[in-house]
């Protein structure tokens, strides 16, 4: 698999850096609105990604990384909210150690996610790549991998005559 060359900080415009940073900051703005239903921030991220993915590979990478990394947190938080509603509002389940452990794990996950997102935003503003574990590689592959169509395009490119 071939990949496009990664842009260096000096190659990027200020607008590109800000758009990339915005992908992470979007989450902070929308997470408050999303509580207690943690789905709003995910929708906001999807919209942000769709709008910005065509801008440049650097912006595409950061938007995609931010979006992908939100999925597990959103799912974990949604399950936590659903579970808590069942316990505290509907009295269907009881507070167990498994639930307590889940809530604490979700808190840790959210903290880790927040810290990584802040670092990601700062790095993106500086025009730097920042790879989250798992999501970083996946996003890099998505944003920078050369597609088969671009290979074909390369093959049929006009070339100067051999002199």
């Amino acid at each position: 698999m071939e990949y496009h060359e990664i842009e260096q900080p000096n190659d990027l415009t200020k607008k590109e850096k800000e758009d990339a940073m915005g992908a992470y900051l979007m989450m902070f703005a929308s997470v408050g609105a999303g509580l207690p239903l943690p789905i709003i921030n995910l929708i906001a991220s999807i919209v942000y990604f769709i709008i910005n993915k065509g801008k440049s590979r650097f912006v595409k990478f950061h938007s995609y990384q931010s979006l992908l990394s939100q999925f597990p947190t959103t799912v974990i938080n949604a399950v936590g909210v659903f579970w808590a509603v069942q316990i505290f509002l509907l009295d269907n389940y009881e507070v167990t150690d498994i639930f307590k452990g889940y809530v604490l794990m979700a808190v840790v996950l959210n903290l880790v996610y927040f810290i990584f997102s802040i670092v990601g935003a700062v790095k993106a503003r500086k025009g730097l790549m920042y790879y989250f574990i798992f999501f970083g590689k996946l996003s890099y592959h998505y944003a920078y991998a050369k597609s088969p169509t671009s290979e074909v395009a390369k093959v049929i490119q006009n070339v100067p005559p051999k002199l």
Partner: protein
Amino acid sequence: MKLRILRDLFVLVALFGVIWILFIYNPLWVDGKDLRMSYEKEAELAEYLEKISFDKFKEVEDTIVVDAINKITDRLLSTLDTSKYDYDFKVITNEEKNAFATLNGNVYIFSGIIKFVESPEELAMILAHEIGHVEKRHVVDKITQKLGIEALFAILNGGDPVLLSEVSKLLVSTSFDRKKEAEADDFAYKLALNSKLNPRRLAQFFIRVLGEGNQTDLIILNTHPHSSKRVQSASEVELPAGFEEVEFDINWESVQLAL
């Protein structure tokens, strides 16, 4: 590439899975009991609420009734190991078949339930169950859970009429979840055995309650749900070898007629 991505995914899932398991077995969790209202605050709130909300109740003062209730409650309370509460049982003139515990050991017994039960031993079992709710602090937990401790202190500091009416409603309709009802039942069985009462009297009572379930004034049925399962557990209480019930020396008919 794919392998590395999968390895990272595995690391992430394993990491948070381990964190979850660690927290299950070693939860850095503030025990809910530590966040409970103190007994002093409960007493303060109870005094305030009793004055405002339950003053409208007409208390039965007939000596036959009062003496009978005292006999029953004295026997129950004498076998209670230790209690933080100074219990106060009040008989109220009200035809609804209900009995409920509020805050700080205050228990209300409606005349309707006294007329409904067939013996003082049956009433003793109901009261033992209510004592269970008090001792396990179910009422405190319920209102703090529903309204928040801040709201309760706000009542003490100003007496917001809306909050006050909410608390009163919660106190009167003391239905609890399955676990809390079972806890209060278990408490009642032990208290009954220590008081030389047959815990199966509670099953007897539930069977009659279920049989008359269509009556609109049978509030005890609504406030003590899940009765069919509780009949079973009350019937299955194991009696110690050689256990013999000591019945109350109370003329129950005269008590009922005095109401």
